[in-house]
């Protein structure tokens, strides 16, 4: 597999009145051609900022990318001039977000917005663009696309708007689709429609996908590889079956234990992770998970563990302790 995107040591800060927010703290990962990467973690752990940083979409100020490289087609996106970056965005790398309403223009028809993307990125004429827009809307499952193309965004339901966003994102055959919680606001039956659609298109077009979510269920059926983030760090990463079958970081173990399962035949008491995630303005000196960890040893309070290989297929965790060999504290 050839590597499509390589992120190395990415660091992003926000300089706010209350202090410096350590949003992303030196994360590294690769994305292969055609691969689907899931990024999971709780609210505020840096999922969105980490991918927005790779696309240079961080508001500056207060934000600033203070370190790292993002290598795409041999070039560092972080060093690229802004006008070149814009050509990569929406062309070779497309994004969809949680709330399609913030990305759709409420006073332009759906068709016009898809057509503009095609004219801009693909250099199509107006009539070519209209024809292609109808095809794209059909492809993402908008019923009666020829009739609905002149509707405005408010005339579409949430699920249909997200389909339009996907149609726009795919309008220029991107190599990478970045999806930041695109189904979080939708009902489960609509979520299933969207996930199904993305999987189908991914397999047809052969694009790579980065899918951000806090839902460990969606990732299980969608991703090839998973990254678990906590407090701006990657704390565990592994191929999907490895991660769910043999989680090694105390936080991942806690997250999976706190989830009830639909197919569980008897109910067990849920394992809760006590306490709260740390304040990113005032991170503790050692391991960021230490205040909530059941496996903590003295070293955890002093030194932050690096991400290191613990198992096959590049299964890596950032933890000083081998949880398999260590009893949990009560």
């Amino acid at each position, binding site marked *: 597999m050839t590597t499509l995107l390589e992120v190395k040591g990415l660091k992003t800060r926000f300089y706010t009145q209350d202090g410096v927010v350590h949003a992303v703290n030196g994360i590294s990962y690769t994305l292969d051609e055609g691969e689907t990467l899931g990024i999971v973690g709780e609210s505020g752990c840096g999922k969105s900022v980490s991918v927005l940083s790779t696309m240079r979409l961080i508001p500056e100020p207060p934000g600033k990318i203070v370190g790292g490289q993002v290598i795409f087609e041999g070039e560092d996106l972080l060093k690229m001039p802004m006008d070149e970056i814009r050509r990569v965005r929406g062309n070779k790398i497309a994004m969809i977000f949680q709330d399609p309403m913030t990305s759709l223009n409420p006073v332009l028809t759906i068709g016009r917005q898809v057509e503009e993307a095609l004219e801009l990125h693909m250099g199509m004429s107006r009539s070519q663009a209209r024809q292609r827009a109808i095809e794209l809307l059909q492809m993402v499952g908008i019923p009666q696309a020829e009739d609905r193309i002149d509707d405005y965004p408010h005339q579409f339901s949430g699920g249909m708007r997200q389909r339009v966003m996907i149609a726009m994102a795919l309008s220029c055959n991107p190599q990478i689709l970045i999806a930041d919680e695109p189904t979080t606001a939708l009902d489960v039956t609509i979520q299933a429609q969207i996930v199904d659609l993305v999987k189908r298109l991914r397999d047809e077009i052969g694009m790579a996908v980065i899918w951000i979510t806090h839902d460990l269920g969606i990732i299980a059926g969608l991703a090839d590889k998973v990254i678990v983030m906590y407090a701006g760090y990657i704390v565990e990463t592994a191929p999907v079956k490895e991660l769910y079958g043999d989680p090694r970081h105390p936080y991942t173990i806690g997250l999976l234990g*706190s989830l009830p399962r639909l197919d569980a035949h008897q109910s067990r008491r849920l394992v809760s992770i006590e306490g709260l995630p740390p304040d990113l303005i005032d991170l503790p000196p050692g391991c960021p998970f230490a205040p909530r960890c059941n496996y903590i040893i003295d070293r955890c309070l002093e030194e932050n563990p690096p991400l290191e290989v613990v198992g096959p297929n590049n299964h890596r965790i950032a933890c000083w302790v081998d949880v398999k060999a260590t009893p949990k504290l009560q």
Partner: protein
Amino acid sequence: MTEDNVLVRVEHLKKYFPITRGIIFQRQVGAIKAVDDISFNIRRGETLGLVGESGCGKSTTGRTILQLYRPTAGSVFFEGQDLSKMKGEQLRRMRRKMQMIFQDPYASLNPRMTVGNIVGEPLEVHGVARGKERRERVQELLQLVGLNPYFINRYPHEFSGGQRQRIGVARALALNPSFIVCDEPISALDVSIQAQVVNLLEDLQEEFGLTYLFIAHDLSMVRHISDRVAVMYLGKIVELTDRNELYNNPLHPYTQALLSAVPIPDPVVEETRKRIILEGDVPSPANPPAGCNFSTRCPRVLDVCHEEEPEFKEVGPEHWVACHLIA
């Protein structure tokens, strides 16, 4: 089932919201049928889960049971007494026994009140405890829900989402209710915090013999916490049964689709799972389809479904369904 097992009995309950036109002379031009003729029981000490998609009428059901909305038609019996016929002082006294916990731990607490006043307010309003006695009771309640009793003079913004939800739980418990409507109490919380709140609700139920109506759209959590589950679609209950029966033997095509859509956090299981992908969106409750409400999306729709509404009936022991496919 004997009558004294039943704490809440809902009979042919309807709640319609009027749609009006005109500014000075408002006239009603239609109605949103938020809850449209539902009947079920909630037994003493049980948790009844209520699931369904956004806008199907779950919150309206909870609120109408508590008489926060007065029903358009039908009755709600609590301990055998018809709440829908009660007014004033009589209703107020009954309300002490029924409380509600809300979805949004940020919006549901008054930001200008201290935790002590938020939790203690029901005690004051119902003249149960004042002054020192009230303070002691509030501290006891805070401790009960796992909050430090010294937090009594703090304000909601000083707490995290999970802690705020605990404050809401403490307030709901202040008057020793027997019945609590939990309206999506964990939806706004992070996964690791959801488990904390669910465990708390389970512990309190065991300790005080509470009865819950647990509203949620997370079917995995509902299976975990409920004894029985009711599935709602467009203002109607389409299926109701024991939680294991519902998950092992769902009979209504909507329940089947809903269950198949829920992702399971296990890649090995997901690999071989078949999804029933529903077409289209939920119709508007102002203009539901003729016949069966699910007929516009049902993968197994019959001709009769467009004309006749299926009756909600018991088709197996304790298994209720409304569908023409099931005799």
